């Protein structure tokens, strides 16, 4: 599957058309979706029409920029006018969006082609994509395993070549986790940068919208289009020589699968070899991250779902309903304590970044878990899958710092690992420069396409 960059070059060289590439994606969907369950809705007719229009516009000299004619998929939390936004839940039966979410409108203006809406963990409230009224999405690299979540169908759609990029949402790691599990790139921009209007919320305190793509540059192109600035000049890669990276070892490296740890250390060594300065930092309140996250996300979600939990509780999948019910018992005083903890964590991450270009840590402590597993063995301990999967990503939803997951090699059994980079608040473009630098100069041994089905 070609990248968006390559697509753009070949499109403008008249070697391909949007209609041809869109048709390729639709054929992949038809062939592989029964196995992967990545899509809830395939918008084949609409996509073909959009692609033909894109080709006509380009032929007439109207070039809308890097997203012109690019087939993308969209997590089924975003409103696309005239289609249902199901949130993978029966609670949303009968919903039809009256207008595009602003992010969708921006992509439409930028000439993107929407091939369909992707499967997710119900209401984005989970990390495995198992609790969906449409059934679980599956990992293209091993369909017995989860693609991660909650944007699991989105990640699977790109990893399987069903779309060149996709839109996800992220409340505790739901862009970076599936990106790491499926071997692609996932970008969570700085909090509040990308509009979440027209997207079904989980926690308005933590929700972010952002892209998953095959490369950091592709993620950058989609990110700028989401901002309504598709024509922005992409940032230049930051030279790795002299790059200052900080590793928050305590807590973040305490609980890692052996192979994930090995890939991470190898990545750090590659970065050092090409001149990066890698030092350790400590976040004093790291031990409170999970508790602070849980109290806020539970209460926020319970508030949004209060009415439907009362009137139609049986329309939720059982695990998601129970998690939402749990949020109704969070006391206001504990919620406020957690908000105070959020401020402390934000200051600590700001301080850790003060002398560094980025934090660097693994994205997922484990490779993609088997579908149906509720616990996972990590080293000598057995841990709940959900807790482990959120462990390294949720902090940056709490604090709002931009974060990106890059592919970082594979386990012996071919499952991808992810490398997470975290930048300063409000400086997503600087983080992208770091990511472009690392991807280009340091991660060349771990092509995002290695081992991909249909890649």
């Amino acid at each position: 599957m070609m990248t968006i960059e390559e697509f753009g070059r070949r499109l403008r060289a008249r070697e391909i058309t949007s209609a041809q590439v869109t048709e390729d994606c639709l054929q992949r969907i038809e062939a592989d979706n029964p196995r992967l369950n990545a899509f809830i809705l395939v918008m084949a007719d609409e996509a073909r029409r959009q692609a033909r229009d894109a080709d006509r516009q380009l032929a007439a000299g109207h070039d809308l920029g890097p997203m012109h004619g690019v087939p993308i998929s969209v997590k089924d939390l975003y409103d696309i006018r005239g289609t249902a936004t199901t949130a993978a839940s029966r609670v949303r039966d009968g919903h039809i969006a009256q207008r595009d979410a602003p992010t969708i409108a921006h992509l439409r203006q930028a000439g993107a082609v929407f091939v369909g809406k992707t499967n997710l963990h119900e209401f984005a409230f989970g990390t495995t994509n198992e609790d969906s009224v449409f059934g679980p999405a599956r990992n293209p690299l091993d369909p017995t395993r989860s693609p991660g979540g909650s944007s699991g169908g989105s990640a699977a759609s790109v990893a399987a070549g069903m779309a060149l990029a996709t839109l996800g949402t992220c409340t505790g790691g739901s862009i970076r986790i599936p990106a790491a599990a499926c071997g692609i790139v996932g970008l969570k921009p700085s909090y509040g940068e990308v509009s979440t209007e027209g997207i079904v919320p989980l926690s308005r305190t933590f929700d972010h919208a952002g892209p998953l793509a095959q490369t950091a540059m592709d993620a950058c192109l989609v990110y700028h289009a989401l901002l309504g600035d598709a024509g922005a000049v992409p940032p230049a890669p930051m030279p790795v020589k002299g790059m200052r990276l900080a590793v928050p070892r305590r807590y973040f490296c305490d609980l890692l699968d052996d192979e994930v740890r090995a890939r991470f250390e190898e990545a750090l060594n590659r970065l050092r070899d090409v001149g990066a300065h890698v030092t350790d930092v400590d976040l004093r309140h790291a031990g409170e991250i999970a508790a602070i996250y849980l109290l806020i996300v539970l209460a926020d979600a319970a508030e949004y779902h209060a009415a439907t939990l009362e009137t139609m509780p049986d329309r939720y999948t059982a695990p998601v309903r129970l998690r939402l019910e749990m949020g109704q018992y969070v006391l206001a005083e504990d919620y406020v304590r957690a908000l105070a903890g959020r401020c402390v964590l934000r200051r600590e991450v700001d301080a850790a970044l003060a002398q560094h270009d980025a934090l660097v840590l693994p994205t997922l402590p484990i490779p993609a878990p088997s579908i149906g597993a509720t616990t996972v063995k990590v080293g000598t301990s057995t841990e709940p899958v959900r807790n482990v999967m959120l462990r390294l990503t949720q902090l940056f939803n709490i604090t709002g710092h931009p974060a990106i997951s890059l592919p970082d090699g594979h386990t012996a059994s071919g499952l991808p690992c992810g490398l997470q980079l975290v930048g300063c608040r409000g400086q997503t473009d600087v983080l992208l420069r770091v990511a472009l630098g690392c991807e280009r100069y340091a991660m060349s041994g771990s092509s995002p396409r290695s081992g991909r089905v249909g890649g």
Partner: protein
Amino acid sequence: MGTLGDSSGVLMKIDAWLQSAVADAERRGLPELKPLLEALAKTVAVVRAADFNQSPVANRQSSDASRQP
């Protein structure tokens, strides 16, 4: 600061909250919430024990200390 979660009174308060929450869940026909609420109680204890919490006593002590010559 730093002693709030160690106070037996506060820990008892979490116990009382948990008992009440479990009873309410059972009354509503959701007994399967019990283990989740027990886990939530541990989470609450972590946040209440954190040293970023403030109290009038801790603030006063801190303020008083700052006024010492």
